[in-house]
């Protein structure tokens, strides 16, 4: 059963050949984009911790009450809380899961893992990275030299220790991870999905290549001409992308490199509320901020103009000399 986690190459290629990879416009609404994600799917999530999280897509999935998603991400923060707390996901594959280093343990994660039987499947950070990379390369595994000797590995029968056929050394093979769909937020892309990422890329390139479908949210849709003027800044080619949604502040209240830093007042209030009561506190938060607003912009308005503009001022300061 665990073996079956790695997609046979034939199936990967068959899935791919059924995918429309032609140069075509893919701009859709947030509602339509979320429909690419079906209950029970394997979902890869871009960005890391509180950076370039595809928060608008997660917000929409919660509103549409998607369920039983198996989610994977390099490092998880409040997005993981929201995925477990809303019932959207019951299985998260990552290397670190709390709200943020400043706030200690997540009471939400603890409640759902310790009491509700939800699964936090732990790999080392490089382990997650090599799994996405193998998926993106179209190979069934990649070798690595960490996790060996640890109890992290003891919990992961999905990985295999082998004796290297070249050197006789012990190396670890980690299985490819090819999500059914990836959710990625970027600074800009064109209507075809050619995406340019400024600053920290995290594991997004490998994730985009690995997934069977990719939904991009973007701060701004730019012309294809603009993309072609700086082709070495393009990090995800259009034929990996199946839907494009323009969502300004689409990572809020997390950060988006060069545009805004995390909105810490909102996050502090969130953490206080859900850690005080991981069930009712979370329900109240989700009702108020996720279900009740008419639109993403309404949600942003609830975070507040002061906080948005201050986060933007801090975000843009990274380019100051």
């Amino acid at each position: 059963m665990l073996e079956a986690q790695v997609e046979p190459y034939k199936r990967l290629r068959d899935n791919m050949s059924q995918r429309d990879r032609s140069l075509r416009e893919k701009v859709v609404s947030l509602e339509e984009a979320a429909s690419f994600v079906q209950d029970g799917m394997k979902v890869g999530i871009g960005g890391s911790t509180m950076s370039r999280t595809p928060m608008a897509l997660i917000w929409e999935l919660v509103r549409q009450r998607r369920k039983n998603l198996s989610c994977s991400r390099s490092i998880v923060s409040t997005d993981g809380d929201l995925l477990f707390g809303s019932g959207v996901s019951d299985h998260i594959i990552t290397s670190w899961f709390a709200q943020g280093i400043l706030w200690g343990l997540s009471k939400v994660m603890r409640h759902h893992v310790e009491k509700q039987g939800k699964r936090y499947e732990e790999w080392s950070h490089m382990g997650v990275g090599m799994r996405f990379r193998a998926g993106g390369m179209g190979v069934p595994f990649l070798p690595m030299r960490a996790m060996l000797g640890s109890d992290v590995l003891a919990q992961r029968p999905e990985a295999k220790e082998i004796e290297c056929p070249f050197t006789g050394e012990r190396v670890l093979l980690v299985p490819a991870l090819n999500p059914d769909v990836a959710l990625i937020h970027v600074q800009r892309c064109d209507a075809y999905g050619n995406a340019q990422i400024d600053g920290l890329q995290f594991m997004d390139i490998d994730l985009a290549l690995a997934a069977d479908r990719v939904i991009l949210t973007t701060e701004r849709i730019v012309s294809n001409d603009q993309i072609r003027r700086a082709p070495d800044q393009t990090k995800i080619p259009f034929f990996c992308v199946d839907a494009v949604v323009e969502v300004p502040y689409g990572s809020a209240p997390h950060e988006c490199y060069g545009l805004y830093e995390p909105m810490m007042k909102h996050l502090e209030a969130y953490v206080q509320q859900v850690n005080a009561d991981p069930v009712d506190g979370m329900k109240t938060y989700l009702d108020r901020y996720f279900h009740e607003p008419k639109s993403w912009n309404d949600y942003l308005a609830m975070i507040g103009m002061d906080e948005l503009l201050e986060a933007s001022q801090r975000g843009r300061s990274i380019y100051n000399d």
Partner: protein
Amino acid sequence: MTEARNYTAAEILPILSARQLRDGQVVFAGVGTPLLAATLAQRLNCPRLTILFEGGVVGAFVEPGKLPPSTNDQRCTRRANMVLGSSDVLLLLQRGYVDIGFMGGAQIDQFGNLNSSFIGDPANPKTRLPGTGGGNDISSLTNMIVAMKHEKRRFVENVDFITSPGFIRGGTSRHDSGLPAGGMFRVITELAIFGFDEKTRRMKVLALNPGVTREEVQDNTGFRLDFDDEIAITEPPTETELRVLRQLDSERLFIA
């Protein structure tokens, strides 16, 4: 500890940690005390210290008063030489480019193994902790400095769960597990500085912090400690160290 001090426990950790670094080293730093200590060292006597962050950053100079809340925030890229993918920066460790990995710790044992995953039985844990992050990768692949609070429940004989390997079960067990490189180099607490015996790979006290006794260290430790034959007494934080540290963390995110 009877003397009046002009510094807190949260302040002595980054200062003593910074002193462990040498100019010109390549250091892979975790968030919190490690980031603060490495940045402090850059501004004191290691101007050519190269700091790597897990988010994908090589050679950053974090700005005073703007410490990043994680190693995946844009603040980590301030005046960086290079920004790259998270997997790629971790692979630099695997290839061997890094001299020192520098992390915080929640729970450590006599062989320098760190636990940040489970308290109690992993199958039915009392507490599910946040997990490894890059900790397992860093401690598997390079020489480690760990800075952490010294409490009896944090210094245990054997951790419940080896998240980030130290010397595993001591002796050659780390090497035999497939980890021929790296290992625990130093542990820094508000009480003392620890190294590891060359042969047994058990933790031993190298130096006591100013005003701290052997007994005080042993009493706060959950296993029998060895003491180095030539045990030293660490110099207290200097005015300069304290001033620069407080400038760096003027928001008091980590030294509060």
